[in-house]
């Protein structure tokens, strides 16, 4: 069985906006063909392979290109160059609270967010108890989401994402901001290999967390992969990087 994910020479360029987005600008651009926007490369020639059941930690400074890489992997954005082969069902959880509606109840949000995460109605019903149990929000099922703390949001969203049982779970700084109780629970989930053979890619500034759960780490800086390999080695190299 081959890898579930393979990136070959993936690069991504974005164009920076320099003026307001108006119809006048579009018409002027169509008439003159001018495009004064600057280009920046968020990813440069990235090669990455992920095997089934493998856990990869993604490290790097702010603006290094970690989230862009996750969005490319999930097919949310297209690479400018290179190829992405994803041979699995992937679920991404990139931003806390997005996709949830504050004025709907916890129960309604489980149904809505579950569908966004790719579950069918029957699957959500079938896994409802597990979601409620893992999130620990049973007593809030009929309360509007706005009454919950951001930590509770996170518990709920993570519990739903986990129950979507993807082949590949992609998490962006997902354990930041949650309460200690939930962090422990989520960590135990990773530790017990409760992913049932699923692969995991997650970003974190907590190097201890990466070291604890990932057999492999990838250090990305300025859109380039600086190092990838056994976690200890990569973290050690990352620790010796020049400041600034």
């Amino acid at each position, binding site marked *: 069985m081959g890898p579930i994910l393979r990136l070959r020479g993936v690069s991504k360029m974005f164009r920076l906006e320099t003026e307001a987005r108006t*119809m006048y600008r579009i018409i002027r651009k169509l008439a003159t063909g001018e495009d004064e926007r600057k280009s920046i490369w968020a990813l440069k020639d990235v090669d990455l392979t992920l095997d089934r059941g493998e856990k990869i930690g993604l490290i790097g400074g702010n603006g290094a290109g970690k989230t862009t890489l996750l969005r490319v992997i999930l097919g949310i954005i297209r690479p400018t160059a290179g190829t992405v082969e994803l041979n699995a069902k992937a679920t991404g959880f990139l931003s806390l609270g997005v996709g949830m509606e504050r004025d709907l109840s916890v129960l309604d949000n489980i149904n809505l967010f579950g569908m966004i995460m790719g579950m069918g109605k029957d699957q959500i019903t079938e896994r409802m108890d597990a979601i409620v149990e893992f999130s620990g929000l049973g007593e809030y099922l009929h309360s509007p989401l706005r009454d919950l703390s951001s930590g509770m949001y996170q518990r709920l969203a993570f519990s739903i994402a986990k129950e979507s049982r993807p082949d590949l779970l992609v998490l962006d700084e997902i354990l930041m901001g949650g309460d200690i109780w939930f962090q422990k629970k989520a960590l135990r989930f990773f530790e017990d290999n409760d992913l049932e053979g699923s692969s995991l890619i997650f970003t974190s500034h907590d190097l201890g967390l990466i070291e604890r759960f990932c057999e492999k780490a990838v250090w990305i800086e300025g859109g380039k992969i600086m190092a990838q390999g056994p976690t200890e080695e990569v973290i050690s190299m990352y620790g010796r990087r020049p400041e600034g």
Partner: protein
Amino acid sequence: MSKPAFASSHYLDLIVEFSKAWFALKDQRSVMGFLWSFLNPLLMSIVLFFIFSQRMGAHAGSDYFLYILTGTVIWNFFIMSTQGATKSLVYRANMVRNFGFPKEVIVFATVGTFIMQFLFEIVVVMVFIIAFTGTVTPYALFFPLVFVIELLIVLALSLFLSSICVFARDLDHIWNLLTRMGFFIVPIFYTLDDVSGPINTLVRYNPLSQIIIMSRQVLMEGAAPDPLVFSSVLIAGLGLLAAGYSFFKRIEHRIVERI
């Protein structure tokens, strides 16, 4: 990019669930919420009736108020849903950026919330028709078919408007102005016989005019729509939707990057 929403029953379910959720949020699941929304076309119809009943009512027949109300409700669905859809992607930019589902799901679900509102409004219109005329004929069963054509046009324009609005944020203001002017080139408070020359041509060949005229035929006049007009507008609607969908899918990846 992502596969088309039409191709997956999961995405169709997602459209329905989003529509239900956003509709519930819009009116906070209250009876008053429904009523407030219906008051807009109702009051508009009353005002138009009092202003124009002396001058324009003659060609429209004895049920001039019903004539205006039916036209207003059909037109109202068109402007509310296209105006709502124009900013739909921009309003839900975080969803566009963070999830991989086809982005037209958000546009269609936004139109879906207005379909729910419209269903309520058209039932109230039927009640008015029965109250004023005492009956609704079996030709009213044609109405869902006429509405489907309006929906095709609304969905097509929504795909164009929502995607272009990501690159030109002032498009919603421009569209609001255009629809305000468009109100006068559809026969809501006048009939085709009340206008002549190039204005008559403009009104006659406007697909929205024909949808309003066919709606009145099946709901109020107890007549079937003209098959030639019906099939022409249907083909125009299907062609427009195919063009809108193909345009949207072609720039979908740029929408995600630029939003």
